[in-house]
Every structure is written in C-alpha cells, then in structure tokens.
C-alpha cells in the first residue's frame, strides 16, 4: 500500500471514530458567544461611563489645580515675582526717588548699603534701582505692586533677602516725601534701606 493511500484510508478511519454531539455543542457555542457579547457590551458601557465621569468630575478639578499652580508659587519658596501688576495702584507712587542711607545700622554695614540710592518706580510695576558703588548685590529685575496703601516688592529677593517671603509695606506720601513702613518684612537690610528714612521725589 502506498503512503498516500495509507494516509487517506487511515486518517479516514480515525476520523470516523470522532462523532461529536453537534447540537449540544451548538447550544454551548451560542450560550458562550452571547455571554461574551454581553460582557463586551458591559465593558464598553463601563469604559464609556468612566470617560464621562472623568470628563465631568475629575477633569474640571484637574484644570482648576493646574490653573492654581500657575497662579500660586510652590510652598516654602519665596515668590520670585509680584502678582499681576495693578497699574492704577502703581501709578499712585510712580516716579523717581532718592535717599542717602546712613551707615549706623548693622544690616546696612554688613550689606554695604550705606550711600546714595535712587529708585525709579514705574507704573507697570518694574523698579529701576541705582545703588552706591559699595553695594555689590543683585538689583536687576526688581518689581513692586501697590494695592491701596500697601506695597509689595521683590527688591533684594535674589541675594541679600533670599529665601524669605515677599515683604509688605505701607506707603504714605506727603508732598515730595515718600515713606515706607514695614507691615511684614523679615529682612533687616531691606527694612533699613526702604524704611529708615523718607524717599524724596525728583519732582
């Protein structure tokens, strides 16, 4: 007998012994398929519900959190800039002012602040500072913000008063004289510079 003939006849005989209960299997297949379809639809419904819940509940909160992050500084770190400028408020004290800082205060001495200072407060909230030659600290990029009778500023925040909160001062102006009174400033050098005497306007 050839191999081909043996294969055809032999496999045929083997297959003839396999006679499954087709109807029983058909019912089982139908049940199994329906179960899978139901499960698949349930999964799709759950997934859709999850998407809806996420978009309705979680997403707005996440957006709020994100936007507040952009508004608020990280905790425990000094604010590098003053919040949105209030040009109307800033306008109240905008101008150029001078004063001479005496050398008596220890904070003045240790930071070489003694001498003639000029500050230019611009309406948009930037602050140009001219220091005596002895002072070597960072002055560029200083800003301020006026709200009613208070002023906040980033002066000295990069070195002399680093790692301290942004200070708040009360300002008063009488004629050509501008005075700052500290409400909250932990930096002695800045208090000595800004609040130890009046600033005189250049006119």
């Amino acid at each position, binding site marked *: *007998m*050839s*191999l*081909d003939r*043996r*294969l*055809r*006849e*032999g*496999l*045929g*005989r*083997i*297959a*003839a*012994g*396999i*006679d*499954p209960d*087709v*109807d029983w*299997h*058909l*019912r*089982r*297949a*139908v*049940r*199994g*398929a*329906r179960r*899978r*379809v139901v499960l*698949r639809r349930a999964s799709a419904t759950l997934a859709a519900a999850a998407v809806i819940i996420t978009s309705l509940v979680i997403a707005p909160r996440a957006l709020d959190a994100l936007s507040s992050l952009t508004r608020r500084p990280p905790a425990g770190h000094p604010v590098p800039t003053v919040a949105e400028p209030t040009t109307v408020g800033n306008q109240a004290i905008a101008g150029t002012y001078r004063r001479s800082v005496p050398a008596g205060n220890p904070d003045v001495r240790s930071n070489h602040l003694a001498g003639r200072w000029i500050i230019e407060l611009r309406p948009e909230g930037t602050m140009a500072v001219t220091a005596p030659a002895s002072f070597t600290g960072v002055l560029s990029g200083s800003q301020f913000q006026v709200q009613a009778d208070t002023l906040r500023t980033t002066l000295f925040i990069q070195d002399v008063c680093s790692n301290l909160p942004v200070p708040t001062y009360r300002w008063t102006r009488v004629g050509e004289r501008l005075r700052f009174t500290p409400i909250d400033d932990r930096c002695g050098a800045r208090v000595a510079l800004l609040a130890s005497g009046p600033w005189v306007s250049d006119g």
Partner: protein
Amino acid sequence: MGLVRRSSQRDTDARAPVNLEGRHEDQADVAYAWLFREEFAAVVRTAFLILHDRQEAEDVAQEAFTQLLVHWRKVGRYERPEAWVRRVAIRLAARRLRREQLRAILHRSVDPPVPTLPVDVDLLRALRALAPQQRAAVALFYLEDRPMAEIAQILGCSKATVKVHLFKARKRLAELLGEEHVDVP
C-alpha cells in the same frame, strides 16, 4: 473519504435551524446553525489529528465556533466563513499542542492514549512526530481533501509553504512507517 462539501444553498437548506435559546431566529442564526452543523464535526476531526485528544479537539472546535458567532456579523459575510473557523481552530490547536508538549517535557508524561477503535495505531503514533503545521496540512489534504490553495488560505501561508509542510510530513511518516516516500505533484 473526506467531508461532504457545502452546497451553495445555505439559506434554503431543508434542515430545521437549531432553537437558539428560544430567541427569535433570524437569517443570521439560521446561516450560523447551518454552518455549524455542516462543519463542526469536520473541524473536530482535523483538530483531533493535531491534538490526538478528543476532548481537547472538541474544546478547540467549540472555542473556534464561539468566536465565529461573536464575529458573525462580519465573518458571516465572507465568501468562505468555514475557512475562517478552521484557521482559528488550527491556530488554537497548534497553540494548545505546543503548551502540552512543553508540559509533557516538564512532567515527563507518557504519550496520550490512542482511540480504542480499529485504527492504524502506527499511523497515529507517527503523526505525533510531526510539527503542528505539518499535522494540520496532512489533515486538510488527506482527510478533508482540500486543494493546496485552500489549505494555504486556512493555514495563512503560501501554497509553496503548504507543499513544503506536506513534503516534510510525508518524508517523516515514510521513515517512521517504513513506507516508500514518493512526492505527490
């Protein structure tokens, strides 16, 4: 020898459709039931020649037909949905066989029992020496009497690959059975 081939009158088949769980049966149910009755046993037999275990073969065929029903809306429109279900069954059988072979190596199990029927036991044992794809090619060619192109479609390979499978299978079987190996055209 081989299977009774499907006629083209699937929708007008005289046999009553199976009662699908009391649900109203539409044309799709009737077509699926018709295909199931026509092809299920053949798929089980082919799977048996790959797995050599009747229960496993029935499970594999069952799973393939369940998948067919899940995808019936799409596959039912194919020209030959029976080729799709065979392909799934053979893939499942090959995967299960590889798993069983690995398990047998791990546990040093003995060969599965052969059917207690007057069959060519030597042939059945020799088939076990073939790779899953070779077993599938032999079953489709010799048992189901399918042409090369159709076997290639079911196995998801080219006709040339099917010829290689069959050539190697015949060569190996001839060695094991002490038969002369003559390649078929």
